[in-house]
């Protein structure tokens, strides 16, 4: 691994040098250090070729596997050496391990043959003369960004690009400037007037309310709110409604979801190993809560980047801050990558890409391999950031061989919860003790009962085994210390023989104890050697004929003068062959009373054991909520932190210069380098991102908010503010509202309020041929674009109409899953485990690879990607899932039932249905259609369900007019 800090490499290199040192023999060599040996020429002609030819294969970045973590391909690496000392000590031949190694004194290097004497002498001369090595020229040491950046990028010219310019406060056009709601309309109207376009008038009040409530809460307005609003559709009332909607918890659920798109939120890893993200939901809740409490956006950004490093006043703050860093962890990772150095850099890359696009609206990934081709981002900027994330711990340990996992950070927990856990642990322990006691007692009594039957018992431990038999105690009923089985393998090769001498001649019943089960053999060959000779029988071990553990083999005559033998073979078996004990019961013995007190006791004990077993299971299932841990990041240990090498062409092994940690130069006012990182550098990165003068962070979030409410961003490529993105349609407006946003403390609710209270937001979506002629793409917002309701809100609205929406949040939504949500075996599927639920969509678990078809077809964000703006597709499969999915049918049926039970009058039923699904009254045409479809007929329940299904699948249901 080469993208490491020098500090770390020192640590890695201890192995070989340690070994070299241990055998070091000091010897003085008279070396004539001639002048020539102190020249670069000497190194180039005598030393470097030898290193390349004989050493690099195992000791360079080109090595397939670096032996003993020793690199000899840079002067820095040679001089650093390991803990035990440097590989060379310039000027001191005998103290140089490299020399003693090639002399075959300490170790024997190179291993395939000692170098010629002349070559060794050259090395001695070279070390004696100071080990001149051009590879230690400043260019290969840590270089300043300026030096490293021998790129074609002209940063000064780059800064001229609009997005890297500071926010400008212009003067609001028209005179309306002083009132709060005037800013937006003033800028928009100004441009519309210039273009000579008359904007649309306000939409009707029904449409406006529907638009507003969906936009702010992701839910339709209730009939009650519709009534209230329609009775007074005034601007004052509008503001009142806006304020009350902003104060509902549903606001954060809806707007939090917008951010979760950008954060590529999911409850599992996806990719090669679909590991469960058990703690991701805490981040989901943190995001929702942040929107609800209107956490200042700069704080929100800083916490997600470096919350774990920030001071906290109390447990709640600490909890929030640590959980916030889950943001950096949510990406999908190739956890089974065996090359861990590559995996680490891939994770770093994903984090840089996410930070770049989520906060800066820039694609930084390109710069991993070369200078950004379109934006002024040199590759050194990328590695300045990479150093920060390389110094951050995102992976830790393995969940199984080669499969990486991540650290779990303990979170503050309440005393009550800790006490609950202690109590729970104690309860479990007590129950298990009781269970053990009952089991022991049961076994003892069982044996007593068996003994009372008389006869002779031969256990597997006393039997003669041939072939492979495996001990087991898996099944709880057995004689002695356990039983054996054939592992369902080596068919025909294993047998077990039970032999005894019986005390009297006569007839005996032979019983075998074995555990039953579906995977057992139904054809176990039993050979009984009795007075009559050998008898071969077949025993079905899938069940017992005598509960709980015995099967009768048959009755046979035995003589006391010869051995009574029972042999079990696994030839022809079709499952596991089990062998526990064989019992010979004399038929002459007095009949056993089935109801001996002892037998009753056994049954009581057996009941007790099964009850206790169930109780333990139940108690374990009802464990208190897990002690909270976060899927958060942390700084690595100080010796593992450091600057990162450039990886040339992005290849981990291809090491370039070290770049000090820092940020993007093009949008940094002063220096972009962190002079003295306080840790990984994330704190400094957070401070850089939230600098009020940062040209991108505020513009990007304000533009996203604008897009969610106005259909398109002012910069329509919301995730790309670079030169390949689009230019803002209204740069002055974007700057004006962004500046106001920052000055007002980075709070989103006032911004949202300002937008939804503007005239522009209220405009109708009506088509105007004249305006389309001039501005076909509606870049000037002469109308409100018709917008798609997000997938979650479409589903929620169906559940709402059905009266089945459960608004409660979920906690630990993927608790039922183990390490993986879906194993990599051929039969495993997360679908089987995901229970149906009617929570709001944002609270449903989001398993990568198993996003419900309804969601994906309606363009829900793909958590494998960072989605600032969702695509809007119309595909046949979307129509199919809406029209034919059993879920939609069920919700339609419930909705129809509600409509029918609402009232007996057809008109009122239809009004209720339209106001519940489309938030408007049915038109005459709608009423006519309903009649045509037969909704007014008797016994039309099925038709109502069909009609509602069609409404759910209609464009009007999923579009905001």
């Amino acid at each position: 691994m080469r993208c490491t800090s020098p500090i770390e490499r020192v640590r890695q290199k201890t192995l070989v040098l340690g070994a070299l040192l241990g055998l070091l023999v000091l010897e003085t060599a008279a070396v004539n250090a001639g002048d020539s040996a102190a020249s670069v020429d000497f190194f180039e002609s005598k030393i470097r070729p030898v290193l390349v030819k004989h050493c690099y294969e195992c000791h360079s970045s080109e090595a397939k596997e670096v032996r003993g973590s020793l690199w000899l391909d840079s002067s820095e690496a040679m001089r650093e050496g390991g803990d035990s000392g440097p590989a060379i000590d310039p000027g001191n031949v005998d103290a140089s391990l490299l020399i003693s190694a090639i002399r075959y004194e300490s170790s024997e290097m190179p291993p395939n043959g000692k170098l010629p004497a002349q070559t060794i002498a050259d090395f001695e001369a070279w070390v004696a003369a100071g080990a001149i090595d051009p590879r230690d020229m400043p260019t290969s040491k840590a270089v300043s960004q300026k030096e490293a950046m021998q790129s074609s990028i002209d940063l000064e010219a780059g800064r001229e690009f609009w997005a890297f310019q500071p926010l400008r406060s212009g003067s609001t056009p028209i005179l309306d400037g002083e009132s709060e709601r005037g800013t937006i309309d003033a800028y928009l109207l100004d441009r519309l007037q210039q273009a000579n376009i008359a904007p649309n008038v306000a939409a009707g009040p029904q449409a406006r309310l529907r638009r507003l409530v969906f936009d702010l809460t992701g839910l339709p307005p209730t009939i009650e709110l519709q009534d209230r609003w329609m009775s007074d559709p005034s601007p004052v009332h509008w503001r009142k409604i806006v304020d009350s909607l902003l104060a509902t918890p549903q606001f954060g659920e809806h707007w939090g979801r917008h951010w979760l798109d950008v954060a590529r939120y999911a409850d599992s890893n996806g990719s090669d190993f679909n590991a469960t993200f058990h703690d991701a939901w805490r981040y989901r809740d943190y995001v929702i809560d942040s929107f609800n409490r209107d956490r200042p956006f700069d704080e929100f950004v800083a916490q997600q980047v470096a919350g774990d490093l920030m001071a906290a006043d109390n447990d709640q703050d600490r909890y929030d801050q640590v959980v916030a860093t889950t943001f950096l962890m949510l990406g999908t990772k190739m956890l089974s990558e065996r090359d861990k150095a590559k995996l680490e850099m891939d994770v770093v890359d994903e984090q840089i890409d996410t930070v770049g696009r989520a906060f800066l609206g820039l694609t930084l990934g390109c710069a991993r391999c070369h200078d950004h081709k379109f934006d002024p981002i040199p590759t050194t900027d990328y590695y300045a950031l990479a150093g920060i994330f390389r110094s951050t711990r995102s992976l830790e340990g393995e969940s199984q061989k080669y499969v990486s996992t991540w650290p779990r950070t303990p979170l503050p927990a309440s005393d009550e919860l800790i006490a609950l856990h202690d109590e729970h642990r104690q309860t479990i322990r007590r129950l298990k003790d009781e269970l053990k006691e009952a089991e022991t007692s049961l076994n003892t009594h069982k044996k007593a009962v068996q003994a009372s039957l008389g006869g002779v018992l031969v256990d597997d431990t006393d039997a003669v085994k041939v072939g492979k038999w495996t001990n087991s105690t898996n099944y709880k009923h057995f004689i002695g210390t356990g039983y054996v089985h054939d592992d369902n393998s080596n068919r025909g090769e294993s047998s077990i023989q039970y032999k005894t001498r019986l005390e009297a001649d006569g007839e005996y019943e032979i019983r075998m104890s074995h555990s039953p089960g579906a995977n057992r053999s139904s054809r176990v060959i039993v050979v009984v050697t009795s007075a009559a000779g050998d008898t071969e029988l077949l025993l079905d071990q899938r069940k017992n004929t005598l509960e709980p553990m015995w099967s009768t083999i048959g009755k046979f005559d035995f003589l006391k003068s010869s051995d009574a033998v029972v042999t079990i073979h696994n030839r022809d078996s079709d499952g596991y062959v089990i062998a526990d004990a064989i019992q010979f019961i004399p038929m002459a013995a007095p009949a056993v009373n089935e109801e001996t007190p002892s037998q009753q006791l056994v049954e009581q004990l057996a009941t007790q054991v099964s009850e206790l077993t169930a109780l333990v299971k139940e108690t374990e299932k009802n464990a208190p909520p897990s002690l909270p841990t976060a899927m958060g990041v942390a700084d690595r240990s100080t010796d593992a932190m450091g600057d990162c090498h450039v990886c040339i062409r992005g290849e981990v092994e291809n090491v370039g210069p070290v770049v000090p940690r820092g940020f993007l130069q093009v949008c940094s006012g002063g220096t972009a380098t962190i002079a003295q990182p306080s840790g990984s550098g994330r704190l400094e990165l957070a401070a850089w991102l939230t600098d009020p003068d940062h040209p991108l962070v505020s513009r990007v979030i304000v533009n996203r908010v604008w897009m969610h409410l106005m259909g398109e961003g002012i910069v329509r490529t919301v995730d790309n503010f670079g030169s390949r993105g689009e230019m803002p349609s209204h740069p002055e407006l974007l700057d004006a509202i962004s500046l106001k946003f920052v000055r007002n403390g980075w709070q989103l609710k006032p911004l949202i309020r300002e937008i939804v209270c503007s005239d522009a937001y209220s405009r109708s979506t009506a088509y105007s041929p004249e305006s389309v002629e001039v501005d076909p793409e509606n870049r000037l917002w002469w109308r409100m674009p018709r917008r798609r309701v997000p997938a979650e809100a479409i589903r929620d609205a169906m559940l709402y109409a059905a009266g089945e929406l459960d608004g409660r949040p979920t906690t630990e939504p993927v608790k039922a899953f183990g390490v993986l949500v879906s194993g990599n075996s051929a039969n495993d599927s997360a679908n089987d485990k995901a229970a149906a639920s009617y929570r709001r969509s944002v609270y449903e678990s989001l398993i990568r690879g198993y996003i419900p078809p309804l969601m994906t077809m309606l363009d829900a964000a793909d958590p494998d990607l960072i989605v600032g703006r969702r695509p809007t597709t119309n595909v046949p499969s979307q129509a199919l899932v809406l029209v034919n999915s059993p879920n939609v049918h069920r919700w339609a049926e419930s909705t129809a039932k509600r409509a029918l039970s609402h009232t007996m009058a057809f008109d009122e039923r239809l009004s209720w249905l339209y106001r519940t699904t489309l938030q408007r009254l049915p038109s005459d045409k709608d009423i006519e259609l309903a009649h045509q479809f037969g909704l007014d007929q008797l016994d039309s329940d099925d038709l109502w369900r069909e009609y509602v299904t069609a409404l759910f699948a209609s464009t009007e249901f999923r579009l905001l007019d």
Partner: protein
Amino acid sequence: MRYALPQLDNSRRSFVKQISAMTLGSLAISASGPTGTASAIAPAITSPHVRPRAKRVIFLFMHGGPSHVDTFDYKPLLARDDGKELPFALPPNLDAVPTLLNGPWKFSQRGQSGLWVSDLIPEMAKVADDLCVIRSMYTKGQSHGQAVGMVNTGSDNLVRPSVGAWISYALGSGHADLPAHVAISPATAHGGPRNYGSAFLPAAHQATVIGQNGKFGDGKIPYLSSAGSDEQTQRRFDLVRTMNERHLAATGPDSEIEGAIDAVELASRMRRAAPEVFDLDRESSATHAAYGINGGVTDSYGRGCLLARRLAESGVRFITVSSGQVWDQHGGLKAGHQKNANATDQPVAALIRDLKQRGLWDDTLVIWGGEFGRTPVVQGKDGRDHNPQGFSMVLSGGGVKAGFAYGTTDEYGYYSVENRVHMHDLHATVLHLLGIDHTRLTYPYAGREFRLTDVHGRVVNELIT
């Protein structure tokens, strides 16, 4: 997804223009037209870059990684040195030990061509003269996840569109009422949907999925039918259309509503057209027998292959038939590989024969292979570990040479050494056979143009007739 329109200029240039004008998301809903002419998926490339040899691809994905040294890559030295030490270094991160393991299957030369094929796959051996074996494949990824990503998406670590999605995007569907990209019984493991997904390409290019994890299941498109009578379903579709048309009438021209109206119409037509294509009972009992559709071990894969042929015949562009993640014999090589071969060998051979008989073979490219091969050295007692360093993949039909082998691995079959073919090269070649220059099939995302082969890929002309 876009709907093809007679008046729409579908050239690449205008396509790009549209993208930049409309922003990516709204691509899928571009203009609508007379629904009678709409195709399920319109092509992005309307005039081929190079002469197309194939119109469609069937990828027989042997998920898990079948052993090349036990199928197509004959290594006499492996038999000679069985149990001896591998005379060179193992690649890193392996659990195998450097002890050579000869497999239990005999190799012999087959057909006129004399291609070496082992007894593990006797049926494929019989059609050896129709096969084009690449013996010098290599790829990225020592673990399944990466290598499966490589073969299916061209990326071992990043989320990228699948090969089928790229081809669907490039060529569109060849059938008015069917999707262009179908995945039959794909595994849920190792990326699952990502391996047939569209990533940042429009969603319509992701595969329609039939069955799962190597199991054919009911063989139906999800949500194509629903409870209730066919009439009832049709009435429901008609009602939705009426509602949407009324909505459109009220709003005036609106591309989203128009797109939705088309989508409902297409779905309705697909609902009527697809069951016929998907109905395997329309095939003769002789055909069923040939594919091994008999309720036995070949039944599931046989159905997959037969459906693949029917889809190919109907114009679907890219069909994957996955064996499920079963070829991963780290132990029990003999029993495991035998079981997998028993399940797939006959259907694969039957598919090739069937395509030939129907005249489809010439323009259908069949690809057989896993995400990597297996080590010639032993893991555990009788297993082989993953080997992305060198392995075989087999092509057939679609403009490639027949009865032909290309490239070599070293004398034990470990590393690809001569005429090496990287997975990117295979992808470039597949696109080339379809008439597409892999450097020109691009899509703008996140500020730059992406392609299936990233910055790599060489068309292996030596394979082409």
